């Protein structure tokens, strides 16, 4: 199902004849680099990642198996113009997501106004009842959003998913850049690449900006489920780089509505918790009673306004697939503008017309359960067997409200180092959007995932996916990156 006509991030639609404007020097670099040298650097990169122990599941659930994800040294490049349009779209979308969350846990105007069907919010298992009526500090719920995008043409970007819970993968963005600076320093002379190394500081500022107002010299911590978690590397990496403590639930205690961290010098009051554990495990008094990862009383401290949780509990509903299909309406409702970033066309099978279309075109569509994540239970029509398709046909008829369908997109490609030389491979992109008390910011970069198997559209690390550095070119004419 490799689309021969897929848009290439370096060559556009020229099939290797002419680099896209602004990327000529990258094409020349690639042409001039002897294959043996490219090979040597690729090996060096792999060795470096192995010795660093950069492991974790990049996307989706944090519980996935731990592995070292292959890194490809040929970067994926966005021009300044492309990036500024993307960044505007991302920031608009994230502003809408935060307004939406503030509304549905507050006055629920969007439901009263009938802009979206009330039941997709209220009857949604992701609607966090303990958060109903709770105002997030400074009005921010989703402080960190990892918006998954794919590209199908020069100006065609599509949002696949809005990860508004605890999106991971940002340490890859930073480690990949480190590796590129070391292995291909000349690239940063011929291309004016925006630096990404300010991300930990931006994240730290974002966290501390949402501290409760009464906190004078706010203390932030990163709450991890522990070293068994597959994203533990990222947790410790970020805590280190932000200069904040990495803690587990047992290191924190709530007394009289205030969170304290146990230290050898005695208890220290905590104002902001960047939590990398799911809502369900945050507080056994309110959520899962069997959770040992969280902190009893944490929700009471949060609801009393004595501690800020990042992302705020309840944010997960914003990336639910049923809600996703209404994002254009949500963006219009809260911003009064047309969405700058588009959703992938989505057929909500709960609607009879959409169900009919889906059943009639099953072999061309991707069918997903509305409450699934991590690619579980997804059928990719063009790759599905007859039997799989019949199973989904039956499931769709039995429980249509449980599914959405989308077209199979021809994801863009990027030249990639393979065993048989450089060849195009499909990619997606996850930028990280930060929202603090003083606004929305996007670090100029992100994580590019690449499907290393020829023709594959599946970029998941569990299915042979790797990563690449993502260069954002700066607007200036100079080349002294």
């Amino acid at each position, binding site marked *: 199902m490799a689309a021969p006509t897929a848009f290439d991030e370096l060559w556009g639609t020229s099939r290797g004849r002419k680099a896209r404007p602004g990327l000529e020097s990258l094409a020349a670099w690639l042409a001039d680099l002897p294959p043996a040298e490219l090979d040597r650097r690729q090996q060096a990169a792999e060795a470096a990642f192995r010795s660093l122990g950069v492991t974790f599941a990049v996307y989706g659930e944090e519980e996935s198996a731990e592995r070292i994800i292959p890194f490809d040294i040929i970067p994926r490049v966005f021009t300044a113009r492309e990036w500024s349009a993307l960044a505007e779209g991302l920031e608009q979308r994230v502003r809408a997501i935060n307004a939406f969350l503030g509304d549905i846990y507050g006055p629920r105007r969007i439901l009263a106004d009938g802009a979206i069907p009330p039941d997709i919010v*209220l009857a949604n298992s992701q609607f966090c009842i303990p958060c109903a009526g709770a105002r997030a500090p400074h009005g921010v719920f989703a402080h960190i959003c990892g918006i998954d995008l794919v590209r199908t043409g020069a100006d065609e970007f599509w949002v696949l998913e809005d990860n508004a819970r605890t999106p991971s993968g940002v340490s890859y963005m930073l480690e990949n850049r480190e590796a590129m600076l070391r292995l291909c320093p000349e690239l940063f002379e011929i291309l004016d690449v925006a630096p990404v190394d300010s991300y930990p500081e931006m994240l730290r500022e974002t966290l501390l900006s949402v501290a409760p107002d009464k906190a004078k010299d706010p203390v932030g911590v990163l709450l991890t489920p522990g070293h068994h978690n597959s994203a533990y590397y990222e947790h410790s990496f970020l805590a280190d780089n932000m200069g904040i403590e990495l803690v587990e639930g047992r290191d924190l205690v*709530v007394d009289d*509505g205030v969170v304290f961290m146990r230290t050898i010098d005695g208890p220290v009051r905590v104002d902001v918790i960047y939590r990398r554990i799911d809502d369900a495990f945050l507080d056994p*008094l309110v959520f899962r009673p069997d959770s040992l990862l969280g902190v*009893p*009383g944490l929700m009471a401290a949060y609801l009393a306004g004595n501690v800020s949780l990042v992302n705020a509990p309840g944010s997960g509903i914003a990336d639910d697939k049923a809600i996703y299909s209404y994002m254009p309406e949500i963006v219009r409702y809260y911003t009064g503008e047309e969405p700058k970033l588009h959703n992938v066309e989505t057929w909500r099978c709960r609607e009879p017309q959409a169900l009919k279309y889906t059943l009639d075109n099953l072999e061309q569509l991707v069918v997903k359960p509305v409450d699934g994540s991590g690619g579980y239970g997804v059928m990719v029509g063009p790759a599905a067997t007859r039997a799989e398709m019949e199973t989904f046909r039956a499931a769709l008829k039995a429980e249509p409200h449980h599914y959405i369908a989308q077209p199979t997109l021809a994801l863009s490609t990027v030249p990639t180092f393979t065993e048989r030389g450089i060849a195009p491979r499909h990619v997606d992109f996850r930028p990280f959007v930060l929202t603090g008390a003083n606004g929305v910011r996007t670090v100029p970069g992100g994580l590019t995932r690449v499907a290393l198997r020829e023709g594959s559209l599946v970029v998941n690390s569990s299915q042979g996916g790797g990563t690449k550095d993502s260069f954002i070119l700066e607007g200036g004419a100079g080349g002294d990156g």
Partner: protein
Amino acid sequence: MRLSVHYTTAYHYSEPPRRIIQLLRMVPATFAGQTVLDWRVNVDCDARLRKARDGYGNATHMLYVDRPVESLAISVEGSVLTDDKAGLVQGLPHDLPPPVFLRSTPLTKAGPAVERIAEATVQSAAGTLDRLHALAANLHRDIRFDTEVTSIDTSAEQACAAGHGVCQDFAHIFIAVARRLGIPSRYVSGHLFRRDGRHVQEAGHAWGEAWVDDLGWTAFDPLNGICTDDAYVRVACGLDYRDAAPVAGARSGGGDEELRVEVRVSEAARQAQAQSQS
């Protein structure tokens, strides 16, 4: 009726815990048919109590004890004026929209046994209200009250398959069936005045509320097969027992725990009652 409630929850620990934290849902609200005259929550040791409200609108207390204690007793004393509203629950000061109560939970997930009752309920009556009445009556008839077999972790499906349980199990089955029929429904914890003279009870009571278009929330006590009346004091609600239980707690250390609950619900002085009904 004017009901007075004395409710004690006493913990005894084999070793003093270093720290105790509890979330209490022990304070009823005033609404149509229920007027809270006075209500006090007391703790018998050096503890801090902080009032709040949860997402359902239940009044809560957070209880913090930060030094070792051998025992902890929480006592509630209050009096409430009640009217028989035939189960109608109107005028709650804080509430969530009904569709929130359509989702199932681990304790109220339908399985084959719940499905069978759901089907029988649909067969036995038409219309939401009649079905709910039939459901409450059928559970009262078919499920046997037994305090020895189920625990706080027993699900609706387990209790239903076993055919017996306590008020909590009756409420869970009622809710599971109602939700299976697409009717928003929720768990309610509270107290019951026993007209048979058994004023001292070993636990609080629990029942269910279901949403009936045109009527609103309507309370059914499937253990007794009736709609609630002026013998009921409604305290807290939630998706299931875990959201509405009087106490959710955690402690550091403390070895084994012995829990003793005593609830006394009685009718206050005749004279006060006469006044209230005048």
